[in-house]
């Protein structure tokens, strides 16, 4: 999957990919103080292209510990779990599930929005590929606004950027690929070579997306992320990240 991190204070977008095996669960947000966990499970494409198997988010799990509620969003259904009982909505429905001031609103075949106390919110977008597509599979996109009130202890592949790191990008120069310039990025004490790239935000245009200019960090976000991407593997869809 692709990640785009918006740094509003510095008005920059940084992006990176995480490539791993299908089935792997990545921790995206782990905030023990707020009691919120967001994890994503990877699903693989049907075929390798250029000897590489693309992976996407096939399932996203949310755990709201103080409410004892879990939400599993997959490309099939949206399920609210409370202890042993569960209630599902399918992507063919438009509707809401409301439990302990958590509202899960599904827009048919489009997106699901989770709102906590009418405040923090998460949006999961459904990307359907046509049936019997030779290579691609349905997948999910997750959008987390920077206004969410996570604690200072929030971590995870996305959670760590709730505290905006200082990023300095300089020495922009022509890259190896024509039209894609390179630059040097100073971040978290590392000096990285980054590439000017384009990523897509599908919230407004679910088909073609809106282009987002970003600086691309190579090697699974190495240097931009705290530690290695494999440090963010978790055993279940609702596990906190152990640090």
């Amino acid at each position, binding site marked *: 999957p692709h990640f785009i991190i918006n740094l509003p204070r510095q008005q920059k977008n940084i992006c990176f990919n995480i490539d791993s095996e299908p089935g792997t669960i990545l921790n995206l947000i782990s905030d023990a103080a707020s009691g919120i966990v967001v994890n994503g499970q990877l699903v693989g494409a049907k075929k390798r292209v250029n000897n590489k198997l693309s992976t996407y988010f096939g399932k996203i799990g949310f755990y709201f510990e103080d409410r004892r509620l879990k939400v599993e969003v997959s490309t099939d*259904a949206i*399920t*609210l*779990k*409370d*202890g*042993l*009982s*569960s*209630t*599902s*909505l*399918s*992507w*063919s*429905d*438009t*509707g*809401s*599930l*409301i*439990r302990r001031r958590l509202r899960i609103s599904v827009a048919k075949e489009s997106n699901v929005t989770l709102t906590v106390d009418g405040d923090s919110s998460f949006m999961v977008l459904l990307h359907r590929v046509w049936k019997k597509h030779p290579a691609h599979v349905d997948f999910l996109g997750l959008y987390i606004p920077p206004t969410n009130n996570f604690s200072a202890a929030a971590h995870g592949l996305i959670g760590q950027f709730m505290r905006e790191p200082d990023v300095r990008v300089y020495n922009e120069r022509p890259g190896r690929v024509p039209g894609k310039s390179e630059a040097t990025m100073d971040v978290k004490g590392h000096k990285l070579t980054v590439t000017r790239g384009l990523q897509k935000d599908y919230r407004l245009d679910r088909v073609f997306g809106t282009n987002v200019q970003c600086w691309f960090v190579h090697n699974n976000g190495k240097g931009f992320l705290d530690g290695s991407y494999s440090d963010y593997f978790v055993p279940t869809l609702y596990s906190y990240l152990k640090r």
Partner: protein
Amino acid sequence: STPSNDDSGESVTGEDNIILHSYKVKSTITSRLANTMVQSRVENGARHPQNLVFDVQIPKGAFIHNFTMNVNGITFTSSVKEKSSARSQYAQARAKGKAAGILRSNDLDMENFKAELNVPGGTKVQFEIHYQQPIRRKLSTYEHVVPLQPGRLAKQLEVDIRIIEPQGINFVHIPNALGEHFAGIATISKGEKKAHISFKPTVAQQRKCSNCSLTAVEGNFVVTYDVNRDRKAGELEIFNGYFIHYFAPENLDPLPKNILFVIDVSGSMWGLKMRQTVEAMKTILGDLRSDDKFSILDFNHNVRCWRDSLVEASRMQTDAAKKYIEGIHPNGGTNINDALLRAIFILNEANKFGMLDPNSVSMIVLVSDGDPTVGELKLPTIQKNVKKHIQDDISLFCLGIGFDVDYDFLKRLAHENNGMAQRIFGNQETSSQMKKFYNQVSTPLLKKLEFNYPQGLVSDVTHNTFQNYFGGSEIVVAGKVDTVNVQHLQSVITATASNAQLVLETLEDVEGLDEFLNNDIHADPKFTEKLWAYITINQLMAERNLAPTAALKRNITKSILQMSLDHHIVTPYTAMLIESPDGEELMLADSPQDRKRACCPGVLTIGQPKPDNSIPSWAKTTPKTKDTLSLLMGPTAAAVHEVDND
């Protein structure tokens, strides 16, 4: 496509020289509305006059809307009229040697339509009846039953069923209800939204044995199917100015139940009935979920509680309850009033002391085989007592075993208190019938359901609030929609699930089905209107039954009558007049639902009314004598004017 079995040339003439040329049943199901035609062509091949009989079983809940008869090229047509005017018209001009009638039957969920003619030798007659019925979903399946009783070998016998479901067909099965004799003869071709079932046994295949002249075709031809449910929770179908909203979500965890079993153990339950009840109860208790709460009350002239309050359905408790049930020895009288009031008291107390999960569903299941003989005997008083004490969120389900119980009373009791009733036949099948009924209500998935539609855009909406939704069933709401001024219809359903409040929104294009349905020659273009009418009539019948004043009853009767006439269907307030082309000869097909206490004829509830004594003498089954030379005369005027009032 299936090969046709044209006349094989085999002789089908019986000893009585009556020849059944053809017996055809055609059904088309358009989105749960089954439109069935039964046609029989028969000839009196003898030289003397004989009786030709057209005897068709019709599923209870079906509405007869047309019958025609062609006698040697002369066609008798039918019209539906207000009952008393039809009767007085009939009293003035009866058909000679002809009779028709609708009879109650003791068969499960069936009644009979019977036409009978005494005709000279060489006469050919074609009978044709049309009826319609909404098909209800039970235990995750729609079941369409086509009763077949040709009575003799038919040169051509054909059952042709088409299913058109815009929601998509998940599966179609043909259980071998007619027996092994016909295994493999029926064919199914199934597409995404349409299916075709064909059953055409040859004369040789119809024979009971290779050289028998008797037919083996007798019983029900059954088709079961379900529509696709894996995705949407509901389906809003709009067509020709009406909408039908089907709602049957799955993927929900069951709500916990608080259930009280109230079991009649009076002397009349002794023997098979009690054995079968014990067997059923053991399975039912074993099926309770660990978050359910339950207790058992057994009653004869006294009321006993297995436990004075509801207990958790743990393995230990259910085992103990099974032992208790096994130890019951039926004797004594029947005190329904006190038993029900005690059950209500237990549930009310548990609720008062906060012992019930706020998301749980409370229900009482009453099993009885007879009228009260001890305590309060007046049925209306029992009804009042129950209504007075029971809380709105408790559902009362009534199982009436056998025919000694006033089933109509149980129906009223159940309908008035958010429940359903079921007639259980006191035979070897009692246990499985009880279990089957219980399975229908054992899995509440949602409670407090409300279906909302934009005011001003819809009108005449059928009941839109429901106490519970049970897994495997389906809620249907219908209404009129202004398709001229509206492009889309929106609905919002709210409900309580096991762990959340559920809000479901639907937005459908009012012309969304037009292309699919208009291009199908078999689809009934009026299915939405008819389904709406049938649901509305059924609801009015139930409301009429519970109406507290005569004036209100009269108003409801008027509405039912008007709708019956508008939609040309036989209900308890209409009768079918069958008329010769010159108007000289008349036959009258009357509904059997005349009993003063009868509830909800044709209604989409489970079970059927008690057999009654009001079948007109002229409609009684004719003994199958070899030669009936006498002419059948119509009824006397006095016999037909003594029923039907408020």
